[in-house]
């Protein structure tokens, strides 16, 4: 037998310019086990698995796979060794169909160079159905929401024969139902002896799922826990070096004020059907629902990002038409997209220029010339309050870890003052410590009179933050829950149509 580890990484170092992302990391993984890696944003989790997958070259250190040393030069080499990866940042061809994306690496391996499209689509449909997901294989990937895109990534990885499966934040945008489906798939793979490396900020999932949990902090291994050795608080204090007492801080009691927004009979295609609701001053309205329920599609209509087929919008009691995002912002509505890479941040621009994009007037003299001093002062401020871990505000957003990119995205959204903020998956991929800071900022703004519409796939977040919750299923409002009634069971039951 030799060794009983399938992957052994020893003394791994990696730095980017002056940033030491990994320092002397040694970690081993066993076949037939789920081994999770947790840590703050920027701790080095993604870097570690990218080194294993061949996406990055290590500076030094050794990697053994089934006892044999490997020197991954590119992802293709490692794929041939049976390593499948679901990256945190999607790598989909957005103009291609779901089926083309799933089989993208096999498209070139066709005999005679011809592709049987019908068969390809059929196989894609079969594959997704086997995994328990419903998705139209001929849909263009770029037209789908991030949750569906995540499903494509999962299916793509599982369409290969894999011996080692790496998942980086696979559930950050999945609702509980899809998450459960993914977990049962992982259980099956585990039975078959696949090595599973799992990265997540959802610590409850991690605790439930993992045979081993390794905590990374500042690029170093803090500790590895065996199953049952750790609890949530213990993990958190290893991760961030202190205890967190409230994950969902209380909001200073404020009176919920008058109605600021009312939506009546909003329709768009068959994704948003007859949706009506109200939002009041100083409240957080949650929107929950399963994959494909139309949460994002609904809020995009309010922001003018898409056009409704029919329906009315009332702002402060007056009927208005919102024709574009520009128009929405002028009328006091602002929107954080769930899709930070495509719609949230500009990766090839510095943090500073990203944050201020939503309100350039605030940093301009005479409405034309940039006041760079003023700009950098205010950006320094928000970088600090949102706890963005970076090498200065002039670093490109592309050089940040996923969670830190998300912080820039939300900092950008909240840089502008509006009456209503629509936050779609605001804490996607953000670590527990920073989440609390973001919730504090939101609470502060709400107590000053902001109204928030919070779309989230994370039920705890909805429960912890919202005064009222709108549950959406198949494009329709299936129920509204008040603060006291909001709990996991009620939301899941409503959204999956068990209860009405």
């Amino acid at each position: 037998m030799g060794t009983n580890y399938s992957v052994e990484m020893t003394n791994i170092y990696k730095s980017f310019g002056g940033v030491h992302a990994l320092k002397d990391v040694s970690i081993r993984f066993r076949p037939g086990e789920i081994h999770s890696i947790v840590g703050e944003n920027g701790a080095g989790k993604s870097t570690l698995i990218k080194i294993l997958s061949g996406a990055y070259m290590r500076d030094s250190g050794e990697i053994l796979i089934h006892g044999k040393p490997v020197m991954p030069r590119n992802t293709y080499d490692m794929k041939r060794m049976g390593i499948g990866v679901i990256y945190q940042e999607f790598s989909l061809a957005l103009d291609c169909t779901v089926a083309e994306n799933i089989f993208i690496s096999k498209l070139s391996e066709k005999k005679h160079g011809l592709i049987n499209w019908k068969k390809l689509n059929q196989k894609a449909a079969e594959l997704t159905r086997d995994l328990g997901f419903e998705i139209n294989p001929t849909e263009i990937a770029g037209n789908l929401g991030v949750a569906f895109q995540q499903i494509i990534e999962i299916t793509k990885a599982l369409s290969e024969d894999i011996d080692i499966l790496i998942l980086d934040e696979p559930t950050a945008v999945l609702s509980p139902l899809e998450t459960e489906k993914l977990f049962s798939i992982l259980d099956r793979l585990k039975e078959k002896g696949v090595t599973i490396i799992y990265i997540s900020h959802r610590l409850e999932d991690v605790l439930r799922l993992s045979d081993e949990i390794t905590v990374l902090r500042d690029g170093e291994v803090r500790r590895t826990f065996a199953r049952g050795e750790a609890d949530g608080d213990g993990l958190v204090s290893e991760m961030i070096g202190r205890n967190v007492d409230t994950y969902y801080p209380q909001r200073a009691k404020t009176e919920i004020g008058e109605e600021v927004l009312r939506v009546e009979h909003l329709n768009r295609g068959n994704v948003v059907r007859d949706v009506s609701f109200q939002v009041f001053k100083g409240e957080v309205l949650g929107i929950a629902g399963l994959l494909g329920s139309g949460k994002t599609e609904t809020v995009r209509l309010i922001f003018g990002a898409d056009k409704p087929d029919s329906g009315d919008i009332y702002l402060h009691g007056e009927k208005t038409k919102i024709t574009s995002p520009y128009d929405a912002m002028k009328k006091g509505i602002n929107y954080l997209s769930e899709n930070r890479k495509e719609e949230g941040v500009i990766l090839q621009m510095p943090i500073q220029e990203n944050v201020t994009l939503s309100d350039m007037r605030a940093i301009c003299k005479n409405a034309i010339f940039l006041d760079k001093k003023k700009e950098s002062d205010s950006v320094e401020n928000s970088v600090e309050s949102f706890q963005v871990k970076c090498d200065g505000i002039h670093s490109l957003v592309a050089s940040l870890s996923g969670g830190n990119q998300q912080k820039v995205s939300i900092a950008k959204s909240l840089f502008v003052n509006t009456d209503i903020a629509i936050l779609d998956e605001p804490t996607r991929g953000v670590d527990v410590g920073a989440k609390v800071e973001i919730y504090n900022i939101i609470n502060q703004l709400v107590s000053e009179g902001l109204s928030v519409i919070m779309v989230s796939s994370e039920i705890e977040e909805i429960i912890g933050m919202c005064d009222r919750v709108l549950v959406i299923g198949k494009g329709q409002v299936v129920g509204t829950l008040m603060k006291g009634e909001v709990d996991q069971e009620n939301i899941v039951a409503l959204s999956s149509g068990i209860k009405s």
Partner: protein
Amino acid sequence: MTNAKRIANFFLENNIYIVIIIMIVICSILTSNFYTYQNITNLMKQNTIIGILAFGQLLIILTGDIDLSVGSICGAANVAVSVLLRGEMSLPATLMIALLLGIGMGAANGFFIVFRALPPFIVTLAMMTIARGLAYIWSGGRPINVVAPELVKINNTLVARIPQLATFLILVFIIMLILLRFTSYGRIIKAIGSNAEAVRLAGLRVNLYRFSVYIITGFLCSLGGILGTVRTGVGSPVFGEGYELDAIAMVVIGGASLSGGKGDAVKTIVGIFTIGMISNIMNLMNVSPYLQQVIKGVIILAAIYSQAITNNKGRLAA
């Protein structure tokens, strides 16, 4: 180690400066008359018009589009000036109409590209032939003398020992420099080239910005056309032919990325004179025009290839 790396990185990032220094050195070694006052002013005048077009192209490329019609619009304006003057139109009115012509053609490009979502390559290709065709029709296919001495006179006027013609390029350069480095407009243009959807969702009117870029470029094209009459004394239907490709080459040699979002005014002016010098030095050395084309192409390819290498090195792995 890191310091050495930083210095190396600086040079890799800014290799356009090295290219032009090498060019200047080679030029002064190869020919004795490169450094004469006569030749330097000549070089400036030669590259004024195409340089102005290159700055228009820079704006378009920053937003992620491309404009193949700049040379033809320039030619149409050039002919329009001479035709209108021959028809006894007053000089100010003539200039005004020529400028509006370029702006109108730019607006037409912008309308179809931005508001009708047609591909820039095709729309500006069509405009390229339309504008060129109009130049031939208006002129009857022949160069027409410009009957405005006060216009033609500018060609030989000096301002502080600098040819007055070149001051237009200097002015455009300074405005572009300010626009791109110090104004919100410049930043938004670049942001649109990097990720237009993110900019739209940040509440900015992406379409208006994109449209405005075509208007500005149209204006710069007709300015180039007007200055063409100054320089040649005629309005010619072939004026500006091939300028679009040189303008693109100048911008790209100046480090701009054809996929948008990246580019700079200083590097563009260096790019303009890099290409300008290549022609200049070969003329001084009496290289045959055919061979000139080959050499120019090879140098452009080499310069852009070296940039692609450094870009790839600097690029962040996925």
